[in-house]
């Protein structure tokens, strides 16, 4: 029931927003997300990290209810460590994202916050679904609000850009839908349940097809090279809250889904294609970092750096090792926090100076020291300096890559060097030095502090005490590894 409530609450809150007057929508949405965050904290408290349970590792708070019984579709949700990690990410970032819009007035504010809350509901739904059909519905449902957010409140060229984004992701989803239907037709009792899917023993050819059908959907969403071309434009044109939702949470849908759906169902194909996928990831890391170095505009720079980071996360997963899995999980959380911070930095600069072009900025540090310090911490986290949350994840990911292949690791390691170059240079040019054009730059307001201080706090906290994440996901990682090794030999 608790899991269903996590999905239902934002949804109901979103509907209730329409009853409020327009100028209260922002406050209503903030209160709703705060309640949801407190609720999530309570779920963490209830969650038993040591529990081993039955067929599905340590899934807890399971709810299984017939939904479309004629087709074997159930409302089947539950939480394991990995799902809970993603739910935590979603529900703790949402209040910050809403707070980040505090100083901005949107036209049709009710619709705007309605869409954001709908998105939260769908995202949580993706992360807790244990029925493939239900999962697919939430997966698609998460796409609609963000589409409208970018379409209605986006910047230049939004119609074309959102369209490309939508078609691209829909292409992936539809292939995944076909794969899901195919798997459903293979199950003995005609079920979409994850247990039935995990019990399938597919032959190698079938695994290959299914793997690509799923993987394409995820590679587009994450995005990996060469499916990334929608991403920089979309992140740039989206209103900042939209960019935060997209990069902070939505792309994690893809990474999470690799863990949840691809690895246990098609392990043979995964190990057969891991070299290809690693090549895609590493090429993406190098390419995106290289492009990022040449960017002149902050949001675009963050967008490209995001491609490099998620490429590394995906690479860690496809080493199929415990270190890689754990690194990926830690880094998913860390990247979510950091990228929201970065986009908020860009938002603040945009509001104060009217531009995010790096060359036109400068000298802001003297005018707004608190702001500059926050930006610095987030920059450090983004380039994975020790003591920040970025360090642990990248270290684990790179070490798993090193164990897999020295060559991959050395190329992927470039991301740290490149990352330092473009992030520090952007910081230097935009914050330090002197710029006669910028004479006024107010330091952080209270609402902005309420966003940036928690982000800085999270960066330092998880940099110093990452153990919490390991505890939470330990069982999931072990379970995935045994499940994969069990599946490697098909029982004919």
């Amino acid at each position: 029931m608790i899991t269903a409530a996590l999905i239902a609450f934002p949804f109901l809150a979103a509907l209730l927003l329409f009853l409020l007057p327009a100028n209260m929508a922002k406050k209503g949405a903030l209160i709703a997300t705060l309640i949801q965050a407190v609720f999530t904290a309570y779920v963490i408290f209830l969650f038993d990290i040591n529990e081993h349970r039955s067929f599905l590792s340590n899934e807890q708070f399971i709810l299984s209810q017939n939904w479309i019984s004629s087709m074997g579709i159930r409302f089947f949700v539950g939480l394991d460590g990995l799902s809970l990690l993603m739910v935590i990410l979603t529900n703790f970032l949402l209040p910050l994202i809403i707070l980040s819009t505090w100083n901005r007035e949107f036209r049709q504010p009710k619709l705007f916050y309605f869409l954001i809350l709908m998105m939260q509901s769908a995202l949580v739904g993706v992360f807790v679904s244990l029925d493939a059909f239900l999962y697919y519905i939430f997966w698609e449902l998460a796409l609609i609000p963000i589409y409208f957010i970018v379409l209605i409140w986006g910047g230049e060229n939004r119609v074309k850009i959102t369209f490309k984004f939508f078609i691209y992701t829909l292409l992936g989803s539809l292939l995944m839908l076909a794969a899901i239907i195919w798997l459903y037709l293979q199950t003995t009792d005609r079920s979409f349940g994850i247990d039935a899917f995990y019990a399938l023993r597919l032959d190698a050819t079938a695994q290959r097809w299914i793997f690509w059908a799923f993987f394409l959907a995820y590679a587009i969403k994450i995005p990996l090279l060469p499916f990334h071309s929608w991403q920089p434009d979309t992140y740039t044109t989206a209103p900042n809250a939209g960019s935060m939702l997209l990069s902070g949470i939505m792309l994690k849908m893809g990474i999470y889904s690799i863990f949840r759906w691809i690895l246990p169902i098609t392990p043979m194909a995964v190990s057969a294609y891991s070299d290809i996928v690693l090549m895609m990831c590493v090429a993406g890391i190098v390419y995106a970092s290289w492009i990022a170095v040449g960017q002149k505009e902050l949001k675009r720079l963050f967008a490209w750096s995001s491609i490099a980071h998620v490429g590394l996360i995906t690479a860690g997963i496809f080493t199929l090792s415990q270190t890689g899995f754990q690194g990926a999980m830690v880094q998913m959380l860390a990247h979510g926090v950091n990228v929201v911070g970065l986009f908020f930095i860009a938002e603040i600069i945009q509001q104060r100076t009217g531009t995010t072009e790096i060359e036109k900025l400068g000298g802001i540090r003297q005018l707004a020291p608190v702001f500059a310090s926050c930006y610095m911490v987030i920059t450090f986290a983004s380039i994975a300096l020790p003591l920040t949350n970025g360090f642990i994840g990248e270290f684990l990911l790179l070490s798993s890559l090193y164990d897999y292949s020295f060559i991959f690791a050395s190329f992927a390691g470039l991301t740290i060097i490149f990352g330092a170059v473009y992030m520090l240079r952007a910081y230097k040019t935009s914050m330090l030095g002197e710029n006669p054009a910028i004479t006024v730059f107010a330091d952080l307001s209270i609402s902005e502090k309420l966003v940036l201080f928690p982000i800085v706090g999270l960066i330092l906290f998880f940099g110093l005490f990452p153990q919490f994440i390991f505890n939470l996901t330990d069982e999931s990682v072990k379970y995935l590894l045994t499940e994969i090794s069990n599946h490697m030999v098909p029982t004919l």
Partner: protein
Amino acid sequence: MSTLVLLSLLGFLVLFLGAFDQKKLLLPVAILGLVAAFFTNALDWGTNHLWYGMMLYDNYAISFVGLMIVTLILILLIASYQFRNEDSHIADIYALMIFVLVGALVMTSYSSLVMLFVGIEILSIALYILAGSRRTNLASNEASLKYFLMGAFASGFLLFGITLMYGVTGSFDLAVISDYANGTDNLPIIFTTGVILILIGFAFKIGAVPFHFWTPDVYQGAPTIITAFMATVVKTAGIAAFYRLFDTCFSGIDGVWYNILWAIAAATILLGNISAVMQNEAKRMLAWSSVAHAGYLLLPVLALNELSSSSIFYYTAAYSVASVTAFGVLIAISQFNNDLQIDQYKGLAKNKPMMTLALVVSMFSLAGIPPLAGFFGKYFVFVTAMESNLNIAVMVAIAGSLIGVYYYFRPVIYAFNNEGQPMERIATSWTFNFVLALGVFLTLLLGIFPDLLSNLPGN
């Protein structure tokens, strides 16, 4: 049978009300009659009555007739809105629509090829008049004539096929033909030619490629509400009749028609969607999109398994509701402009938020976006097709759906563009608002609880 009699009488009653100038009574009488017909229809559930060896009123027929009655009620409510300022012969239009329904009823319940032909003719002749019901409008006249010529062609093919079939088997009865088809080892060429001719006749009627070329012109020329009627009720009847024949008679001899139908389905999906992309007129775009939907509907006919009838039924239901809503919005916006360009949806969101909601829901449902009814319909069709290993055809359908998103999203994108002309002048009526609200509600309801309909028609 009581439904058939009731509907025929209702048609005449409406005609007479028109003749005696009782305009105020027209709509209530028609709606009440249709509601009554819906109930008498439902009462026959499970009886499987065979009428004089001519009509088998089984659950399959009852489900489709029920669906078409509901669709017609919605369409009449919108028609009363579209024709509210015109005093000429509304009664004739209502009555003809009801007669079309009579033909549709016969088409879904025939157990003899003669009745199939009679049903198609009842339906078609009334439609020829309806397509030309805007007598002073040149496009409407053209539509009517084109539809008549093409319809006559199709009827010719169909009749020729039926004749050949009769020549070989000596009977019009579906059971006899089925026994013959399944029990004969080397089917004579005359028989297989008959099957192909009948298939072509049906392809004409439902507007499948390459027999589709009349659809865009006819759909565009006819008054919009008649277009909506053709796209929903008539298409439903066509596909229901198609499936009924192929399921009962030709399921054992799919070697004869399988490849042809496969090609027709794939071509219909692709060409329908691609052509819709290139349209700038909203009505023409919807016309092409209805061609594409005919293609999706052919997949379950091709699959021909135990899920087929349910998926056809569900798909037509979802499609009908969404289409009526979409055409309703189109009628409201185009009341000052007959050939509405898609970019004239501009400014809708600002001025008519509720109508925009209806537009978004209906377009997304047609595009197959979850959790709306249209998505589940597509999903259901895909499952049915993949159950019979039509994996490649499903890939084609997926490509078609992707293309579909492009043109279904265009009106939505324009609607959220605030630069458009003010639309305050758009007047609506309560029946119109009711249909739109109901359309949105049903699309959501069927999408979230597809079990409400997905077990129909049952066996």
